[in-house]
């Protein structure tokens, strides 16, 4: 049985949960999982992988595709080649994976969200998940993958024994590309297009006095408030919060629409959200056709109940 080399993603001391998806596909494909990680105090369940390769280097080196590629080449030269090199399909994952593939001339398939063991077939999204392409490699060589977050984490299971650990020397920084600093995105005003979680309010919330109560809920949920055109027209919310064709187009992870019936001008501005949850009194409201989850009910009642539960729990 060959092994899969997993390039872990760590951010400011945290071992990211999306690494589990990379571990999961290695298991699913029947490969031993070797985890490459910078030296440091990361919280990892060592039973989930077969080997942990610690690299004597700083975290920021794991953000540099040139350095990582150098490191992986070194590992591949000094020991048996992995059958797969797995990254998460993230900003840095795709950067490193594609660079490595080009440097070594290896096949690459990105954004994997499904796998069929019989035939070694990988499913990748096309056209924002409207269809999936099923891919195979055609060359006997290590395969480079990036895996979609949330797709395989259930297959990252405890193997019942602690992984073997080794430490390797890191590579030093290079002139071609160097890390300067982490930057928190500037927060000048609110940019609802950047929010991961929007709590969006519509006419169905009733009147302006209800808004502060939703703001409290948003705070509890760590959500950002947005709204539909009528709510902005009435000046219950400022213009910068408006979603829709005459406002902003948003694609958050979660779009929780409360009291929004879903005029198509509004739908156009939010339909590509990863997960849409709609709360509306009217079971026939068009928004339910676009939502992944729905509750037929009064937005204000649901709001109060949510607050109760969160504060109570």
């Amino acid at each position, binding site marked *: 049985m060959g092994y899969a080399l997993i390039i872990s993603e760590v951010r400011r001391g945290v071992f990211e949960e999306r690494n589990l998806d990379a571990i999961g596909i290695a298991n699913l494909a029947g490969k031993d999982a070797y985890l490459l990680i910078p030296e440091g105090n990361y919280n990892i369940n060592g039973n989930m992988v077969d080997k942990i390769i610690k690299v004597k280097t700083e975290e920021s080196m794991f953000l540099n595709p040139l350095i990582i590629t150098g490191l992986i080449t070194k590992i591949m030269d000094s020991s048996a080649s992995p059958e797969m090199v797995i990254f998460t399909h993230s900003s840095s994952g795709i950067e490193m994976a594609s660079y490595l593939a080009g440097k070594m001339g290896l096949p690459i398939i990105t954004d994997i969200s499904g796998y069929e063991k019989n035939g070694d077939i990988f499913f990748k999204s096309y056209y924002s998940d409207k269809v999936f392409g099923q891919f195979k490699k055609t060359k006997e060589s290590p395969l480079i993958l990036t895996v979609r977050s949330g797709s395989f984490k259930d297959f990252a299971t405890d193997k019942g024994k602690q992984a073997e650990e080794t430490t390797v020397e890191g590579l030093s920084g290079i002139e071609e590309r160097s890390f300067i600093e982490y930057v928190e995105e500037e927060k000048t005003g609110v940019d609802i297009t950047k929010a991961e979680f929007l709590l969006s309010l519509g006419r169905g919330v009733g009147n302006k006095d209800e808004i502060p109560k939703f703001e409290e809920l948003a705070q509890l949920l760590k959500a950002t408030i947005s709204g539909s055109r009528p709510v902005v027209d009435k000046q219950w919310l400022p213009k910068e919060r408006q979603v829709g*064709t*005459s*406002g902003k187009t948003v694609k958050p992870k979660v779009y929780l629409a409360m009291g929004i019936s879903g005029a*198509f001008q509004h739908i156009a501005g939010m339909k590509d959200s990863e997960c849409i949850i709609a709360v509306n009194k009217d079971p026939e409201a068009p928004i339910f056709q676009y939502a992944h989850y729905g509750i037929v009910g009064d937005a204000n009642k649901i709001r109060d109940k949510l607050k109760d539960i969160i504060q109570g729990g």
Partner: protein
Amino acid sequence: MQDEAASRVLVCIQCGKCTGGCPESGRTPFNIRMLVRKRQFNYAIDESMPWYCTACNACTIRCPRDVKPSEMIIEIRSSLVENGDIPLAIQKALENTFVQKNPWGKPRSKRGEWVEKLDFKVPHISETKHKRLLFLCCVHAYDPRCMIIPVNVAQLLNKAGYEFGILGEEECCCGNEIRRIGELGLFEELMEENKANFKEYGVEEIIALSPHCMNTLKNEYGDMGIKVMHYTEVLSNLIKEGLLKPEKTFEKELIYHDPCFLGKQNKIFEQPREILNNINNVKLKEFSRSREISLCCEGGGGRMFFEVEAQYKRNSETRVEEAQEKGAEVITTACPFCVMTLEEKAVEKGLAVKELSEILMEVI
């Protein structure tokens, strides 16, 4: 550039009649007389300013010197468009129209989907005898609220035994709003595509469902040798000829709102009123500002696609309030943009907005 202009800013005497009739005057920073002034002297114009105009045309109609301030707005917008410097929402509407031939970017392939709501088949124009085209309009094709309008009108025409056909997914946006946004190149492309279809299928008459489409097809496509009508003109004739009979009574108090593109711009005041007055029990109420001076709903000139910066009381609200004072229970009109802008405010105040065809369907 001034040579080619349709507007005549140099002859303006700054009398202010334009501003006096402008639906944006006073409540927003928009001042059409001032803009004409600035244009006369080639002074810089704040870039947000031209986007307030709703293209209602009141200024041009009222102008004693034929300055055509509404054409001037198109010229200003046009140079902003050419510089690529336009509000994002407008930009999206234009790019959508470029790709999918409608401002919302809905699939062109679904433009004909509304016919599925009918229990009879509407033929493609090529299969008809009289070559009468029902020209749909993007709003009617895609907006779930307004999709009922073509369904109604098709049923009414069918009931009267009046043959018509459609272009289905071959129809593209008429370009009325696109021209008013100032994207003249795109307007030309849309016009050429539609005209080519009209020619290919030998269209002899066009029944436009939206006053906006009717306006541009009739007045801006050049002489096509095709008679262009609004559907209310056709229906009022069918009623007169006894081919359509409103038999039931309409129990609610009704008031009619003149759409700018139907009324003041194309002088179609009587036909909608005739249709409505023909209904048993209807004593049509009138707004204090009706017919030529009807208050614009603010849905035209690209305003359906984007919001201006200023927050102010919308004309639709003023309109709904007056309807309420006059004791109306239902506001009726014959334009999809008016339906959408008025309905938003009417619903809040417990009034209904019904498009004229919706009223007819209730009584026939």
